[in-house]
């Protein structure tokens, strides 16, 4: 039997078992059973993915599974790459669920939630191996609905969850409609529903049709990926969903949006004109900058991570856009480099975002709050979680020796080599892209210093943070697995080069120009190289040597009170909060963010010169959302109110509507 088939069968089968088990097991054992089964199912997915990236192809038609079109599965190297991501994230989430959802059997531990969770993971595993338009649409919709149900898990406890659910439902369905129209149009124009048929016929389509299809698919996939300006669901859904669901959505589901763009743009439509990719690159630049600015000023830990997802998707889209533009300019070397960076960054982001959302989930579980201004001091009660979150933050800030650094280095190298004599658009776009990546990285560093520094260090800022306790072993194990993944990706990314070569060949981009040296990356055609392992070992070894040498020369350390200006002991209220930490940055980007500030000064009754109290309130609205979506939402609401007149409650009227509709359809048929 083909290993891919076996792996996929195991993945879906185990997921179904988990789903059924969630209904049948008592609440005390439910989380454990489902968690273990999901984790094993994820591991099977990883195995299938690895088999697929080694170049074993696999195709299967299952005509009986879905009505009308049947189910077509087709696994190539690209499918394998994303299958590995989904499987690995599923494994970590499975282990995490044991501790996170174990407990009183409510909320994330409820029967419904644990039944839907494996369905969601299985649907995600099937998306990259879908081999025809109906199959892709079916599993895509299954994934969307399952994730919506999971987002709504805690809808009884918080009103914000319901609002997030509505936003997510509306946007994901709008995106689905765009995909439906785009892909069906493509199928109709090529006369084939299978990807193989579309691939061979797409070259003969008129440019207007392929352009329209690409834009529709881009809208659908980019909204799932959370690219600005199609992002408003993302900070809501990621923040309000239970953390194990946030992990799955942010680390795996949004990547499938990226997969869709790659599959349709490069594989099915075979490249296309340059303006497509300039649009994608512009979308990416906007997402990266806007996402990270919002993340930098966010006070809610999970909202911060969610906007950071938008930022990383932005960087990925920027890379995809450049791949297209560079390939169009005939610079296959730089194009391959950009695509290598994109693929590595999807894996890296999946690894560190799994870890960070797992850490955020532990914090929320331990303290009951997500707000950074109320956290702090968690390093003492939760040392292991803090260490893991710091590892993830190092990667998310793209600092060496984190894994994010490797992919950003590759991305920058692609922009730095547009080639001599490149045309005007590329000559201008390349330095701008470098500037965008650099500013994004810089602000990302601020963001994650804020997240770690104010969330975990110094003194607790509230009672709930002071009462925090370390998470159970299963959650720590899950974080440990994710952290190990981050470390492996950081030090030996070169191991992925054979797989990358096959994926790139599948996308008609030649091979990857990244040569594997001994434990390092060396770029063919340019003289750039980086040795992540040496870098990591060097930093750790030299730091250790410096610390040990300094210690052995001097005297032992002493605890002392910090400088309090002679005014008695420092309290938590004197610390810099997350809001105050981000204030200078927010002032610099005032014109972009447009924060709403509110200062109330209460004066003493006796003298207007004496101030009794000052209340400062600030909120940073999502401007793009307010400008772009508010009018649409208002219009829809107004139309809805008007349309109420049509539904008067009279049965005669409804029957008349039906009659009119039937007559119109028949008349249309007759005229034709």
């Amino acid at each position, binding site marked *: 039997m083909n290993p891919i088939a076996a792996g996929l069968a195991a993945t879906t089968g185990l997921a179904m078992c988990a789903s059924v088990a969630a209904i049948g097991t008592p609440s005390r054992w439910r989380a454990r059973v489902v968690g273990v089964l999901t984790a094993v199912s994820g591991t099977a997915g990883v195995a299938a993915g690895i088999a697929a990236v080694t170049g074993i192809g696999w195709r299967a038609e299952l005509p009986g599974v879905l009505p009308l079109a049947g189910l077509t599965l087709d696994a190539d190297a690209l499918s394998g790459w994303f299958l590995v991501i989904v499987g690995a994230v599923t494994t970590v989430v499975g282990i995490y669920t044991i501790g996170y959802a174990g407990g009183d059997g409510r909320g994330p531990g409820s029967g419904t939630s644990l039944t839907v969770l494996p369905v969601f993971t299985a649907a995600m595993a099937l998306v990259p191996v879908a081999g025809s338009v109906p199959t892709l649409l079916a599993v895509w919709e299954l994934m969307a609905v399952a994730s919506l149900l999971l987002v709504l898990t805690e809808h009884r406890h918080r009103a914000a969850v319901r609002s997030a659910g509505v936003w997510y439902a509306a946007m994901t369905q709008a995106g689905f409609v765009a995909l439906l129209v785009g892909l069906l149009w493509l199928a109709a124009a090529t006369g084939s529903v299978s990807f193989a048929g579309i691939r061979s016929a797409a070259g003969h389509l008129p440019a207007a049709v392929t352009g329209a299809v690409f834009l529709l698919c881009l809208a659908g996939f980019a909204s799932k990926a959370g690219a600005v300006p199609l992002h408003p669901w993302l900070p809501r859904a990621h923040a309000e969903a239970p953390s194990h669901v946030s992990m799955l959505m942010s680390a795996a589901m949004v990547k499938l949006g990226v997969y869709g763009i790659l599959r349709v743009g490069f594989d099915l439509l075979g490249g296309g004109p340059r303006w497509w990719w300039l649009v994608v690159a512009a979308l990416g630049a906007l997402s990266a900058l806007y996402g990270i600015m919002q993340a930098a000023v966010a006070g809610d830990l999970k909202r911060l991570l969610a906007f950071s997802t938008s930022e990383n998707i932005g960087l990925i889209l920027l890379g995809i856009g450049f791949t297209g533009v560079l390939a169009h300019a005939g610079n296959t070397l730089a194009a391959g480099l950009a695509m290598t960076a994109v693929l590595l960054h999807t894996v890296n982001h999946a690894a560190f975002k799994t870890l960070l959302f797992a850490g955020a989930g532990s914090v929320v579980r331990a303290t009951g709050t997500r707000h950074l201004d109320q956290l702090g001091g968690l390093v003492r009660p939760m040392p292991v979680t803090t260490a893991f979150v710091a590892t993830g933050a190092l990667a998310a800030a793209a600092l060496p020796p984190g894994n994010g650094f490797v992919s950003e280095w590759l991305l920058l190298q692609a922009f730095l080599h547009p080639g001599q004599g490149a045309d*005007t658009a590329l000559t*201008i776009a390349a330095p701008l892209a470098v500037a965008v990546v650099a500013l994004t990285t810089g602000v990302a560093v601020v963001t994650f210093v804020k997240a770690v520094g104010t969330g975990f260090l110094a003194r607790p800022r509230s009672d709930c943070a002071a009462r925090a306790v370390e998470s159970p072993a299963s959650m720590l194990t899950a974080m440990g697995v994710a952290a190990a993944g981050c470390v492996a990706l950081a030090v030996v990314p070169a191991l992925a080069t054979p797989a990358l070569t096959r994926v790139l060949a599948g996308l008609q981009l030649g091979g990857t120009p990244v040569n594997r040296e001994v434990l390092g990356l060396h770029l063919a055609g340019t003289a750039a190289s980086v040795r992540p392992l040496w870098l990591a070992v060097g930093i750790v070894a030299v730091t250790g040597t410096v610390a040990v040498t300094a210690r052995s020369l001097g005297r032992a350390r002493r605890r002392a009170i910090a400088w309090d200006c002679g005014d008695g002991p420092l309290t938590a209220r004197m610390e810099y909060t997350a809001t105050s930490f981000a204030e200078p940055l927010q002032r610099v980007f005032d014109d972009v963010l447009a924060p709403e500030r509110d200062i109330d000064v209460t004066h003493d009754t006796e003298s207007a010169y004496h101030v009794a109290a000052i209340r400062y309130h600030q909120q940073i609205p999502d401007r793009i959302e307010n400008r772009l979506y508010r009018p649409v939402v208002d219009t829809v609401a107004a139309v809805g109110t008007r349309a109420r007149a049509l539904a008067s409650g009279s049965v005669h009227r409804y029957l008349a509507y039906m009659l009119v509709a039937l007559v119109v359809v028949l008349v249309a048929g007759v005229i034709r």
Partner: protein
Amino acid sequence: MSHDVSSQLLNLACGLFLLTALGVLWRRQVSALVSLLTLQGALLTTIAVLLAAEHHSAAALAVAAGIGILKAGIVPWMLRRVHRLVPDARETRPLVNISASILAAAGLTLLGYAAARPLVAAASSASGRATPVGLAVVLIGFFLAATRQRAISQIIGVLLIDNGIAAVAFLATGGVPLVVELGVSADLALAVLVLQILTNRLHATFGSTDLDELRELHD
């Protein structure tokens, strides 16, 4: 002077020419703006002299001398006089803040470069390849005139536009016909005079040269 050195000097002068425009955007003190404008006039003269030397043309050298007297001498002198009469020391409230102005200038420079790409491609000499600089200064001048509140800053914006046009003319053609350049400069002198009178009147009547206050009169 070898050809190579001369073209390097020309590039240097063009680079500094653009940087003075950036300096005008950055500084708020009116006196500093006038000094920068003087420097820019001197750089424009340098460019003209270098081009004249390259073409061994006496007429072009005469134009360069005229430009030098006008742009590094008379115009700054007049601006200093206006400034002495109307002592608005600083540009206090630009419509677009300084950092954003500089980033916008970067964008405009890129645009100038993109727009002048055919000229650059067609140019045979090193001087032709520097034409985007002139175009960028024209755009920055427009931007300055559009976003500043004080009348004197706006005059400076207009002068930047004129310097930019002159630079484009020089660099693209390698020396302009004398008559055209003199005509343009005479126009400019007239414009400065008119603005000077206007500024004085405005100051005498309202005690300020904030142009937005004129609009309030209209309302």
